[in-house]
């Protein structure tokens, strides 16, 4: 590159006059100091990664509690149904109970 080169002449003639910004440095440092803001995770992302947001003990406690509560509910439902069906069966074959209930019909299943 020399002075006869047209590009050099153009570059030499170029002058940049930046506008005056008195708090330029302050603005730059403020941006450097600002904490990085990560985008908020979506609901599904939070849901799928929920154990990492909860202590492991809490996760286990919740899982065990759900299992225990559901198991107890199912067992009680089954026990009550079984007891009710046993009573209905005995009522259908026990003459004393059948005659005590005047509306009962005599039926054997």
């Amino acid at each position: 590159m020399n002075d006869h080169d047209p590009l050099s002449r153009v570059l030499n003639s170029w002058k940049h006059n930046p506008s005056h910004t008195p708090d330029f440095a302050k603005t730059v440092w403020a941006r450097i100091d600002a904490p990085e803001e990560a985008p908020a995770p979506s609901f599904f992302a939070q849901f799928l990664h929920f154990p990492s947001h909860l202590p492991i003990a809490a996760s286990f406690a919740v899982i065990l509690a759900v299992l225990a509560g559901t198991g107890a509910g199912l067992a009680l439902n089954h026990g009550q149904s079984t007891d009710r069906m046993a009573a209905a069966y005995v009522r259908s074959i026990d003459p004393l109970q059948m005659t005590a209930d005047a509306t009962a019909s005599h039926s054997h299943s």
Partner: protein
Amino acid sequence: MKTFVRLSLLALVVAALAFGLTRWLAPHPHADADEMAWMKTEFHLTPAQTAAIEKLHEDYSPVCMEHCRLIREARARLTALDAANQRATPDYAAAQAEMTRLKAVCHDATQKHLKAVAAQMSPDEGRRFLDLTIPKLAGQSHDAPLDPR
């Protein structure tokens, strides 16, 4: 310690919720089943056991009907004597004695039938069947030892 208490409380609340929802929403087993269908599923009856128990029911049906008839007659007689102000008469005492005898006969017959049904099941299921049904018999004292055989 505080964390432990908070975890325990959380577990309790979740367990109570799961229990309540299960009780409320889960379908109750055997809700629409008849007695024979219930026995079949509850006591894991094989087709042969089911057929044998159905035969026992068929054979017991006329016996049960006859017992029902006798008890109704005895009750009607007692009611008639009572209505005629005959409570202090030997007739009333005899009718009462007959009623007591009939009740014992019916109770024994029903118990015998239940034991015959239980004998068709596997020993464990038979014992469970008797544990469930015998206490529900009218006039059962609840303290008799049960034997499926």
